[in-house]
């Protein structure tokens, strides 16, 4: 009898608590709650699990082992850190190349194309929704022996050239290709934030074209450049398909090592440790860069 009454009391006090919370929370808090809860379960919790797992004894599958740093030791003593450095350098190179390639395009989208920039945006967006595998495979068909490029060359000149596939260059090529939209769109946003009048004023005050670029356009569009670079780098570091499809065995990125650890090697703690290192690098960069930006201003708050 007592226990059922206690249960009732517990239930009603829980309800009262919920009502109090609902009354105290404003519309901002209330609308944010579903997403926050979801991201906690779906993003924060798995990452925390991975971090915890990285300290578990190797080749075990439970959370309840004795914490150890053995996995990290293994990483630094093995060749894994080479893959790690490869992934980081490839990502960095990709980012640098893309920044140079895309800035002129971003500039053109904002200042040169006028009404056509909508069309161009659409054109650049469509491939984004096509799975990267498919697009990479197109490059395979392009570069492979008897493929589109070599086949045409052979047909026209009879030359039988070496395939460019399965080289490091091919992997970089593929990565640059896949991440174009991720660099281009934030950059375009950045360039559009340079008020035309400020540019004109600089010219009016006697600056040369190069000076205007260096003193006005580049600094003012820098938020877009930084965000595009950050996004490209972070995603490129996690690239998995490009290396395999275009590079064969030539390039082993860290994601491949992580995948192997999780699947074939059945060594989840090691995989987790590798993942944690990657996350640490990514996390540090993201915090560093995103900390300084006013998102309201960037996304168009009036």
């Amino acid at each position: 009898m007592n226990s059922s009454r206690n249960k009732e009391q517990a239930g009603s006090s829980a309800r009262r608590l919920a009502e109090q919370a609902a009354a105290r929370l404003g519309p901002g808090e209330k609308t944010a709650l579903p997403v926050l809860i979801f991201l906690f379960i779906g993003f924060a919790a798995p990452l925390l699990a991975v971090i915890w797992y990285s300290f578990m004894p190797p080749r075990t599958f439970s959370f309840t082992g004795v914490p150890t740093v053995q996995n990290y030791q293994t990483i630094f003593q093995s060749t894994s850190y080479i893959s790690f450095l490869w992934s980081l350098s490839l990502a960095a190179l990709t980012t640098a190349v893309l920044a140079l390639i895309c800035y002129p395009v971003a500039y053109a989208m904002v200042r040169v194309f006028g009404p056509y920039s909508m069309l161009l945006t659409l054109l650049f967006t469509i491939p984004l929704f096509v799975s990267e595998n498919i697009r990479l495979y197109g490059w395979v068909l392009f570069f492979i022996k008897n493929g589109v490029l070599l086949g045409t060359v052979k047909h026209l000149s009879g030359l039988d050239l070496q395939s460019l596939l399965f080289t490091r260059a091919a992997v970089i090529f593929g990565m640059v290709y896949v991440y174009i939209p991720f660099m281009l769109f934030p950059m375009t946003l950045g360039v559009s934030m340079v008020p035309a009048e400020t540019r004109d004023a600089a010219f009016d005050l006697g600056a040369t074209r190069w000076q205007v670029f260096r003193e006005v356009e580049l600094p003012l569009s820098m938020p877009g450049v930084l965000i595009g670079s950050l996004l490209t780098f972070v995603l490129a570091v996690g690239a998995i398909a490009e290396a395999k499809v275009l590079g064969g065995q030539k390039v082993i990125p860290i994601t491949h090592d992580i995948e192997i650890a999780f699947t074939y090697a059945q060594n989840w703690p090691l995989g987790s440790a590798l993942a944690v290192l990657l996350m640490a690098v990514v996390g540090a960069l993201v915090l560093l860069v995103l900390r300084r930006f006013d998102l309201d201003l960037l996304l168009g708050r009036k």
Partner: protein
Amino acid sequence: MNTREQKLRHALVIVWTLVLVLFVYLPIVCISLASFTASRYFQFPITRWGLEWWAKTFSSIEIRQLLSTSLSIALAVTLLAVVLGFFGALAFARYDWRGRNFFQRVILLPIFFPQSVLGLALLLWFNALGVQLNWTTAVFAHLVWIVPVVTLVMAIQVYSFDPALEEAAFDLGASRWQVWSEVTLPVLFPGIFSGALFAFLLSWGNFPLSLFTTGADTTVPEYLYAKMVAGYTPGVPVLGTVSTAGAALLLVGGYGVILLLRRQQREL
């Protein structure tokens, strides 16, 4: 500023942009061409044209299963992402509240994150929870990345929403529900529609997350990947072209709908 110099610069930049566009579409063109070859191996220039592989692909039960799996995931993701993202967008852009800055940055984290690592983390998480992997876990995985994207897309539209509209409707006698259904939802509809479009397409084409979280089920990108690394299969270009054409149609069609909606609002 020398105008001739400027014109030359502009011309160069236009040419460069068009080169890049060509560059972006070249592999897609290659795949489409390859889908029309009748031979078992890929050889360019194509000598034997034919649609046999198209027929074979569409009659394959395995392929139909793949398409159905990808479609189910994408539809579920779209529905859930739009609902969650709508509330998220309101919290992001509409209301001034104490945790707003924090919230805005938290939303970005899953986007600025290597997807394959996220996929693996979720794989670990699902296993730790004892959840069996199938297409529903893939839906969950997609949402972790897609909900923030959809939130951002919708937030952009919510930013330009004048809160006075809701107050005016309320002042004019509408109940809270009527304010919602007569003013808020209709005005925000283009943003909701864009969000839904993004959600569907991003889920449809996703590979890294699907790879690790679909378990026994397989999506189209996963299947294509497996076939690709194993060597050339003629069915791959066909399926690839179908997937691409579908996405393009949907995107262009969706964009057309949005333009139509906007034009409708503007000239009656």
